[in-house]
């Protein structure tokens, strides 16, 4: 068991990397993966603090987050497949339907 700062820094690093990926990557699938990375960073914090406080709730929430990640991955990939069928692309900068 290291001091919590270690885990905090680790999760910080993962979080930043993930967010950079979200911003800079073109391939939407990779963007989704980066989001998974961010979620993982959060999980690390939760589990670490649950260990520190000797309270299991943090792990419960980590579990919930994993479940949500699964749901998000499923739906996101479904959207990507549907999108690919219609537009023949998975590039983030070609998905500009938000501005119509």
């Amino acid at each position: 068991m290291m001091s919590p700062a270690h885990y905090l820094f680790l999760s910080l690093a993962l979080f930043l990397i993930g967010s950079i990926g979200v911003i800079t990557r073109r391939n939407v699938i990779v963007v989704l993966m980066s989001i998974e990375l961010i979620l993982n960073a959060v999980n690390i914090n939760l589990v670490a603090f649950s260990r520190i406080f000797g309270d299991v709730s943090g792990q419960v929430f980590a579990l919930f987050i994993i479940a949500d990640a699964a749901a998000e991955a499923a739906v996101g990939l479904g959207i990507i497949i549907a999108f690919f069928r219609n537009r023949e692309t998975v590039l983030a900068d070609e998905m500009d339907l938000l501005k119509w």
Partner: protein
Amino acid sequence: MLASIVFYFFAGMAVASAALMVTRRNAVHSAVLLVTTLLATAGIFLQLRAEFIFIAQIILYVGGIMVLFIFVIMLVRFDVALQHIRFRLQRWVALFVALALGVEITIVLLFARRLPGQGLLIEEPASADKLPPNTEELARSLFSSYLLPFEIVSVLLLVAMVGAVVMAKKRINDQ
């Protein structure tokens, strides 16, 4: 000592492969690297004595979600090596902002470290062999005090499943 070895091993693996994952061009490589990251994270969970989260991480993330990702990457045959960052300005901005964030949080943490009460370390965590068996503990609190969130999450999963099926389903007319 052993603990620190384990931690640095896993942490280094996680960070390194995460960085690689963000920068690799090939989506499949990114996926594999993400798998590595996740496995390393799982190792850290194990070190934190969260066995159940550890195995859930492996089964769900690595065995489930990542397989799904790779699968979709293959379905969506888009592995042309595309010059993977187009908006250069955005890239620099992102790097800068990320750096700024990192610096801020680092300042915060170090500052917190200098606080009375040896920083963030609230109290000495219970030693490993004193911990209750993790899985039972988790299950107990999951089904007693977190029952409602649990059910909500299950409903969420159901909804996600239905939604994914509906979206990815082949319409009859577009053959």
